C-alpha cells in the first residue's frame, strides 16, 4: 500500500466508492422489479438490460480502485493502475454489442408488426393495468439515477476518473431513457403498438452511444494516446498546456504525453537536466491538480539514438 494522491483526491476516490456502492444497491432493487412488470414490452426489456449493464461501470470502479492500491510487484513493476482501462474496454465493448443487438431487435419488432401485450395484475383486491406499474418502476429507475449521476460528475472531474465520469454521464442521461420508455408504455395504452418498439429502438441507440463513447475513451488510453478530456475525445486542455511548458523548457525536443489511470506521464527526447525537477512546479494548470503530473522521463533525442559512443 502506498499513499498515492493528495488528501482531497483520496477523499474523492472514497466518496466515489460510496456512491458506486449506493448505485449497485439501487440497481439491485430496480432489476428484479423491472423483470416482474416488464411483460412483453420491448422498451421495458431494453431499459431492464440497460439497467443490468449499468452495474458494469460501478463494479469496474470498485475493483479498479482496489487494484490501484496494490503495491508494485516484480511481475507488475508499474502497478495495476491501468487494470480499470482493460476492464473498461471490455465493458464498453459489451455496451456496443448489446446496444446493437437491442436496436436490431427493436427494428425487427417494428418490421414484424408485433403488438405488445400489457395485461393486468390483481393487487389489494383491485385489478391494475401493468402499464401503471411499469411507469412507477421506470420512475424508480430514473430519478435516483439522475441524482447519483449528478453527484458523481464533479467527483469524477476532481479525481480524473474516466470510469466514474462515463458512469455519471450515463446516469445523468437516464431521464431520456426513462421518458422514452414511459412514452412507449403510454403509447401502448393509447393503442399505438409501434410506440413501444420505437421507444426501445431509441433507448438502444442511447446504449450504443454510451458504448462507443466509453470505447473511444478507454481505447485511447490503452494505445497510449494523448490524455483526453473527460467530457469528449479532444486532447485535454491541461495536457496541451503541459506539453507547451515542456516544449519551452526543452526547445526543439519532442514531447510526448500519455495517461495511465488518472495520472499523466511525459517523455521528453532531450538530455536530462543535471538537477532533479519539481514536477508540481512545472505543472501549468490548477495547483490542486498538480498531482496529475506523475512522471517526467527523458530519452535520447532522435538523432542520438543510433549513435554509438566512440571506443
Amino acid at each position, binding site marked *: 500500500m502506498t499513499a498515492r494522491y493528495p488528501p482531497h483526491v483520496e477523499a474523492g476516490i472514497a466518496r466515489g466508492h460510496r456512491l458506486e456502492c449506493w448505485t449497485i444497491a439501487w440497481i439491485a432493487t430496480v432489476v428484479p422489479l423491472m423483470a416482474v412488470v416488464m411483460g*412483453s414490452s420491448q422498451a421495458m426489456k431494453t431499459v431492464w438490460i440497460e439497467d443490468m449493464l449499468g452495474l458494469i461501470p460501478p463494479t469496474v470502479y470498485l475493483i479498479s480502485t482496489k487494484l490501484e492500491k496494490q503495491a508494485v510487484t516484480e511481475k507488475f513493476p508499474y502497478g495495476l493502475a491501468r487494470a480499470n482501462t482493460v476492464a473498461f474496454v471490455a465493458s464498453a465493448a459489451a455496451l456496443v454489442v448489446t446496444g446493437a443487438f437491442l436496436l436490431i431487435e427493436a427494428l425487427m419488432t417494428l418490421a414484424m408488426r*408485433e*403488438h*405488445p*401485450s*400489457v*395485461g*393486468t395484475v*390483481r393487487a389489494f383486491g383491485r*385489478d391494475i*393495468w401493468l*402499464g401503471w406499474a411499469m*411507469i412507477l418502476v421506470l420512475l424508480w429507475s430514473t430519478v435516483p439515477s439522475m441524482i447519483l449521476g449528478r453527484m458523481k460528475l464533479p467527483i469524477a472531474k476532481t479525481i480524473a476518473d474516466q470510469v466514474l465520469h462515463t458512469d455519471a454521464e450515463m446516469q445523468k442521461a437516464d*431521464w*431520456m431513457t426513462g*421518458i422514452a420508455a*414511459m*412514452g412507449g408504455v*403510454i403509447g*401502448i*395504452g*393509447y*393503442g*399505438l*403498438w409501434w410506440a413501444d418498439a420505437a421507444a426501445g429502438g431509441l433507448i438502444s441507440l442511447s446504449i450504443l452511444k454510451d458504448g462507443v463513447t466509453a470505447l473511444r475513451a478507454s481505447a485511447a488510453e490503452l494505445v497510449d494516446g494523448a490524455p483526453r478530456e473527460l467530457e469528449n475525445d479532444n486532447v485535454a486542455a491541461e495536457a496541451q498546456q503541459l506539453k507547451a511548458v515542456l516544449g519551452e523548457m526543452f526547445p526543439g525536443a519532442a514531447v510526448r504525453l500519455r495517461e495511465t489511470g488518472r495520472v499523466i506521464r511525459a517523455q521528453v527526447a532531450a538530455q536530462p537536466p543535471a538537477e532533479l525537477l519539481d514536477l508540481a512546479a512545472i505543472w501549468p494548470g490548477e495547483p490542486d491538480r498538480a498531482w496529475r503530473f506523475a512522471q517526467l522521463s527523458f530519452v535520447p533525442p532522435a538523432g542520438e539514438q543510433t549513435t554509438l559512443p566512440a571506443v
Partner: protein
Amino acid sequence: MRTRATWCLTLLLAASCSSEFPRDPDRTLDKIRAEQRIDVGLIAPLAASEPKVHALLDRLTQATDAVPAVEAGDAEPLLKRLEAGDLDLVVGRFDKKTPWAKMVTLGPALRTQKAGKTELRLVPVMRNGENAWIGLVERTARDVAPEAQ
C-alpha cells in the same frame, strides 16, 4: 428540452386517466360491443365441458352485452385464426411453457391439472396487443377462478 419532454409526458399521463385506457390497436373490445358478438374458439374436447369456461363466457356477456358465438376445434387452426383477428377468444389447456405464449397472450389459469411432469393450465387466450380486451378477460377470469394469478 427536458422540461418540454416532461410536460408532454405529464399531459399524456393525465389524458390516459380516462375509462377508455388502455385501448386496443385493432379495436377488439369496441367491435365486440358494437356487434354484440364474441367469436370464441374452444379447443376440443375438454374445454367445452368445463363449468368455469361457461362461467367465464357468462360474465363476459354481462360485461360487454355481447353473445358468445362458440365453435370447437383443434388448437392450431383456432390459434391461427385468433392471431389473424378472426376470433376474439380461445379457451384451452396449455403447458406452462407452451411456445404459443409468444404468439398469443395467455390469461390467468381457470384450472390447473397435473399430467405426469406436465402442468396443464386451462386458460383464456387473446390476440397479442389488444390490451383493453386482454384486461377485461383477465379480470373476468380472476373473478371466475379467484385462485388464478
